[in-house]
């Protein structure tokens, strides 16, 4: 589904403070793979995710998504395949807009935003039913501004919004970093369920080794812009939680 071929990315190129964030990474991510990326700060995880999302472009190398060369495709065009959940709950939703309007925008992620009114009674009903599956009681608050909700609620809704339109790849950039343990648990469960139900290819960046252990069917550890460890399938299942802690020892 995603093929990253020998991708390099450096910031502040040619200056004394040059940072080689991603150093010649080759990575093939299969369809339905749920990849977890761990690594210390500055290891290049987020840059790698941003390269896939299209918010930064590689210095050299190429990126393919679903058979298309997207190396130079900007983020707003890659949205036809990719949905994202950000670390900051504020980034994934528009605070001043109602929940309903947020969902409307998500429902036309892969389509043109035209000059017709798309929020009608049928759409409201559809959103209510979707939100009801979260069991947070938000289905009766769809006219409320997104900004009135808690971070956990917003992250859960952002996840739900990602499957409002056809979605192949889900990028999760530390989605629970800003949340309390209970909300974090709800968000991760929701993500896992959606990834299974909608057969998504997913990449999760996390500092939470428990999540890295519990979720996903492949794990890579990054350091200095390169892949240090890569375990998938049974290797990942055989992994013990303590092994993960040892990686950072």
């Amino acid at each position, binding site marked *: 589904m995603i093929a990253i071929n020998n991708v390099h990315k450096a910031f502040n190129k040619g200056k004394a403070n040059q940072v080689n964030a991603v150093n010649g990474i080759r990575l093939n991510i299969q369809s339905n793979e749920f990849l977890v990326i761990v690594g210390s700060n500055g290891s290049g995880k987020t840059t790698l995710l941003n390269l896939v999302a299209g918010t930064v472009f590689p210095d050299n190398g190429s990126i393919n998504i679903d058979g298309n060369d997207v190396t130079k495709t900007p*983020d*707003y065009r890659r*949205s036809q395949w990719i949905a994202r959940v950000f670390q900051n709950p504020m980034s994934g939703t528009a605070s001043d807009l109602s929940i309903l309007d947020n969902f*409307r925008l998500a429902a*036309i992620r892969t389509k043109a935003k035209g000059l017709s009114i798309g929020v009608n009674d049928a759409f409201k009903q559809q959103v209510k039913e979707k939100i009801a599956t979260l069991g947070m009681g938000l289905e009766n608050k769809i006219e409320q501004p997104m900004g009135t909700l808690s971070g956990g609620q917003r992250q859960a809704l952002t996840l739900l919004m990602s499957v409002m339109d056809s979605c192949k790849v889900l990028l999760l950039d530390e989605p629970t970093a800003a949340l309390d343990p209970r909300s974090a648990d709800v968000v991760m469960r929701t993500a896992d369920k959606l990834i299974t139900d909608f057969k998504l290819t997913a990449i999760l960046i996390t500092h939470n080794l428990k999540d890295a252990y519990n979720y996903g069917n492949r794990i890579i550890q990054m350091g200095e812009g390169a892949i240090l460890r890569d375990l998938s399938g049974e290797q990942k299942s055989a992994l013990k939680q303590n092994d993960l802690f040892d990686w950072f020892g």
Partner: protein
Amino acid sequence: MDFYLTALLQGLCFSALALGIYISMKIFNIPDITTNGSYTLGGAITGIMLTNHQSTYLILPIVIFAGGIAGALTGLITTKLKVNALLAGILVMTGLHSVNLIIMGRSNLPLISTSSLFSILNIAADPNHNTFWILSVFVAIITLMIGYLLKTDFGIAMRATGNSESMVRALGVDTDRMKIVGLALANALTALSGYMIVQFQAFADINMGQAIVIIGLGSVIIAESFINWFNITNVWIILILVLIGAIIFQLVLALTLAIGVDPNLLSLTTSTFVLLIVSLPRLSFGKAS
């Protein structure tokens, strides 16, 4: 009484400007100084075309188009050349001053015995009442169009752009293009105010746009106080409050003149008034907490 009626009519003329500032300031979070130039641009085009006996109907689309170009220019400079939005606006505004002078040919154009928007219909015997009705209908049509636009899928994407750019891009919207379109729309509305005010006061002047952005800002800030007090999210009510804000602003100015404030102090009064509405809620909240 006539004094206040005039203020009301001026408020209606400025309501398009207020809607424009609402779009650039509140929806896109861009302090758009182009306003000063595009307002005069609308006025200059209206003035020169009316003195050359062109129909007000023909002037209307040209003014909208010209204002749109000015806004799009600011949008292009800030998004493609990555120039700070405030500076981009100042650059375009400064450039427009020359453009406006070239259009007008001189610094002041009196419009005596030319036809205008307000002479096309005779609904009421009193010319001021006549003007009131024509302006009301005109402003109502503009508000309906903007309200409809903001309700569409495109409008939702527009409103989300100023809120969370990362989200909107992740949802497949080219935010650069959106800002250019938004600034074009905002300045087209601003130019429309120039179009109305020139026909209302029967002259165009090269300095008519000086600090006009403060009138738009003041109107929007008055509206915003109501929006925050009553927690309003409905787009239609917000737009109507912006219109009311524009009228209140003019009425307050009329009142200050009526109680005998020196007209030379009008600009000072205006900025003090805007400062007051911005800071009063914060001052009182500060005490409460």
